[in-house]
């Protein structure tokens, strides 16, 4: 029997990093920056949070207070991913470097950065713990509402997650609202669709690109933080985050650049991601590997169909991947 009550919470907790990554990448792409560095940014966000929490736990000797235990990793995560966003903007917006190459270089750097400090933090700081296990800090991140346990299946489906999960949904909805219903969102979209026109209308292209890309990276970084602090219970293991960053980029296409759709679509992706655990295949383990293909196949199908139908509101931002130089017009 397909166990929905255990399936949905797992699918949702898989979906949260994807949702963060997707929201961040969507607002970045809406201003025409195709940031392929998101996988790296998410690693950096995660490890920055881990480093912050690690030093905090070391300095207090395990006597952590809830407020600081949440605040310190959160701030260091935001700072780490913000710096990555700033680097991307500096290279692509100010120096007008190729976006694909910059993004890939950032992914190489970010994944390396995460794995390096994840693997060497203990040696570098010379502390006497066997592995990075931030269970004290993590317990504050994964704390769910106190009455969730008393509500039966309703509790486990809707209320069993840490605060970062709800924050992801809030951020996605706010981003969707800003993009579609505010003046800022309109200007932001115009920068992505036709920067020359936006520039002529007096919109500061550089400022918009910098701000959205940096905020986008910070949101994406939170996805990494959620993964390591809540989902993985504060235990860092190298490469465990895997290809979720790329999946988040896939999700952006799947949701045709709409964060509000992403709330549900990320759960669908999260479900597809772990579906192989729930499908009875008996002894035949190999088929499970084929099920893991599903999110990617679905993305490809959506990508092809949207390009076939050629509806204008479902297309990528027109200047996606191109840098703007005023004198090029």
């Amino acid at each position, binding site marked *: 029997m397909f166990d929905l009550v255990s399936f949905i919470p797992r699918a949702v907790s898989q979906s949260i990093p994807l949702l963060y990554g997707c929201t961040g990448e969507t607002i970045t792409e809406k201003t025409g920056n195709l940031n392929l560095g998101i996988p790296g940014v998410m690693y950096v966000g995660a490890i920055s949070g881990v480093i912050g929490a690690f030093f905090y736990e070391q300095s207090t000797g395990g006597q952590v207070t809830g407020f600081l235990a949440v605040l310190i990793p959160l701030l260091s995560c935001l700072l780490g991913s913000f710096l990555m966003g700033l680097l991307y903007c500096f290279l692509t917006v100010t120096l007008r470097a190729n976006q694909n190459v910059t993004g890939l270089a950032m992914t190489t750097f970010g994944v*390396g950065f995460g794995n390096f400090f994840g693997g060497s933090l203990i040696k570098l700081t010379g502390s006497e713990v066997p592995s990075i296990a931030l269970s004290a800090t993590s317990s504050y991140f994964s704390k769910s509402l106190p009455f969730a346990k008393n509500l039966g299946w309703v509790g486990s489906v809707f209320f069993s997650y840490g605060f970062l999960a709800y924050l992801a949904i809030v951020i996605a909805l706010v981003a969707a609202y800003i993009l579609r219903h505010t003046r800022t969102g309109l200007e932001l979209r115009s920068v992505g669709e036709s920067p020359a026109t936006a520039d002529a209308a007096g919109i500061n292209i550089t400022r918009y690109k910098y701000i959205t890309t940096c905020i986008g990276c910070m949101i994406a970084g939170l996805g990494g933080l959620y993964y390591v602090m809540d989902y993985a219970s504060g235990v860092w293991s190298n490469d465990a985050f895997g290809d979720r960053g790329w999946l988040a980029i896939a999700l952006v296409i799947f949701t045709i650049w709409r964060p509000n759709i992403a709330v549900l679509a990320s759960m669908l992706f999260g479900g597809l991601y772990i579906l192989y655990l729930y499908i009875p295949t008996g002894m035949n383990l190999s088929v499970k590997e*084929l099920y893991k293909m599903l999110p990617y196949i679905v993305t490809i199908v959506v990508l092809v169909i949207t390009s076939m139908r050629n509806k204008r509101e479902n297309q990528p931002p027109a200047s996606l991947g191109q840098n703007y130089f005023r004198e090029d017009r």
Partner: protein
Amino acid sequence: MNEKKSTPLMHITKRKELPWYKTWTIRLAAILLAFVACAIVTMFLTGDNPVQVYSTMFYGAFGTPRKRWILGQEVAILLCVSLALTPAFRMRFWNLGGEGQILIGGLACAACMILLGDKIPNALLMLLMFVTSVAAGAIWAMIPALCKAKWGTNETLFTLMMNYVATQLVAYYIIIWEVPKGSGKIGIINQNTNAGWLPQVGPSKYFLNILIVAILTIIVYIYMTYSKQGYEIAVVGESENTARYVGIRVERVIVRTLIVSGALCGLAGFLLVAGTNHTITTTIANGRGFTAVMVAWLAKFNPLAMIFSSLLLVFFGQGASEISTVFGLNQSFGDILTGIVLFFIIGCEFFINYQLHFRKSAKKEGV
């Protein structure tokens, strides 16, 4: 009224093409700066002096004959993938699917070795391995190309997704063919008979790979620079409308170029499986599909310059892995250094393409 005219501190203009020696001076300066930055980072983490750090890196890359052969082999494979991506990039088709095309080529090659090894003569097996891997790579690249040509589907994202489909396909077959059952890996294929292994030519088992790629470099250079097809690719890349106007069938050029691109990636997979590793894993491509994008771009898509850019990146990879061994650090150290070098080189392109004009001192102009 206080009418203040504000002149920005500086403004940017596009440069005319610089003479080649100036562009290379700028690039060299960037690389040198990157070396300094890497040395500072390494010093900070290992507490050793920079001379020591770089001598360790040089030893890691060139220290022993074995290390030199491994370096050559790594450069050859990376160069092969970069060459494969070049025609597509010249056409402004962002083929980020190199990873998947290598994997699928390797998979086709391994399939022949496993299923047909010892059943047919070795020469025929080799031929079959070669043909199937090249064809598999070509097909993998052709699918996004067809969609791009027909409906204008975004190729960057499509090829990216194809990587993971290929990875899972390889994972599927690894479980089917795993030896011994339940181990989750295939192990060395045909270890006893060596059926389908590329023969050792010359001084090292890596020599044949290097030779093949060296020949390939020249072929790709000629193809891109002197052939009609190479010219068509360049025209489509510069302006699709111009290409249509002069009667080039753009759709056909896109598909044809991607077949070439995918086929060469498949060839890289063939070299990896038949020539070097004699096995297949999901990580056999090892990020080369992505690294090659940067190699090709650093060399401005010039096949001969790619020899140097791939050497540079492989040197950092190998050197950094030596540092991590010596100082007991994590292997990912190489990725950090590679990233830093790339940031510097990416950034320096700005100074090649653009010129900064600073505001002239306002007093002189008499305000």
